[in-house]
């Protein structure tokens, strides 16, 4: 006697999944790599900037001189239902600190369009780079900040 009821439940659930497939494919974002500017010579009369390009290249301007070869853009993996629209947001400016010293990070850029469609594979990787401004009076030290990235379904 319960069979008709079970049939109805199944029908309703299938109908819902058909209309909203993202029920089982909620968009997600995973960090793969932190944003690392690496070591560079600056401050104490040496001003300029250092940029990490989303492609992975590092550039310096002014009197700032990059050192070593450990640097990387931040890398993320976005997953969701294929064909679903997504948007990526991140701050345009962020701050990094070392004790009482502060530096500004700006020109945050992404390796893929910040609005798009999730590809058939259901996942897409992307990188985020930025530019760190080095003032002539900046003190030496290890600077640390946070880069929050958000993905949304449109």
């Amino acid at each position, binding site marked *: 006697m319960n069979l008709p009821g079970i049939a109805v439940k199944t029908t309703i659930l299938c109908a819902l999944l058909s209309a909203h497939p993202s029920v089982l494919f909620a968009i997600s974002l995973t960090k793969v790599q932190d944003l690392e500017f690496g*070591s*560079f010579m600056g401050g104490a009369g040496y001003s300029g900037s250092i940029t990490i390009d989303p492609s992975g290249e590092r550039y310096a301007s002014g009197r700032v001189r990059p*050192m070593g070869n450990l640097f990387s853009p931040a890398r993320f993996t976005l997953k969701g239902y294929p064909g679903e629209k997504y948007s990526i947001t991140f701050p345009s400016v962020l701050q990094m600190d070392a004790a009482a010293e502060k530096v500004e990070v700006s020109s945050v850029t992404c390796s893929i369009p910040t609005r798009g469609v999730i590809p058939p594979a259901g996942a897409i990787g992307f990188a985020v780079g930025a530019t760190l401004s080095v003032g002539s009076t900046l003190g*030496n030290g*290890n600077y640390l900040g946070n880069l929050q990235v958000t*993905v949304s379904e449109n």
Partner: protein
Amino acid sequence: MRQTSIYGKLLAMAGCAALVCALGVGTGHAASVTAEATGQVIKPIGVVVGTHLEFGRFMSGATAGTIEVTAAGVAQVTGGVGAVPGNIRVAATFDVSGEASTGFSISMPNTVTLTNTDGVGGETMVVTLAKDAVAAAGTGTLDGLGALAVKVGGAVAVAENQVSGHYENTTDFTVVVNYN
């Protein structure tokens, strides 16, 4: 039995509605993660002259010779050269500063030329530099305070009856430092 069936349908619909609400259908899903942003600022490296290489006064003779100041600052003469007492003879000191405990490279010439600046002048003497261990190796490491003194002496080749005068170099004694 019919009442039970309707109740089951309503329960199923309510359950699905709850599932829909829980998963946010009809509202945009979003997810956030935070990456660290890191960078290490290294203090610029620099070098200044602490003391200049000074051979003091000396006399040339009927035969050629040398006057030398070692990197450690010890002076001595050879051949026909005679040292005039009471003169200051010191090795050059180059004070390197930068990031503590960091390696650097240093380069400088092996010889410099001194030119007579008195009278008509123009006479020259060649100095073969006597480098300390860091200068000779071309690399060093700054100490825990980010400093290191590099010392350089030299030996002046004095010709027989070298014309008297004040001899000095111009721009050929340049020291360059860089982080490794």
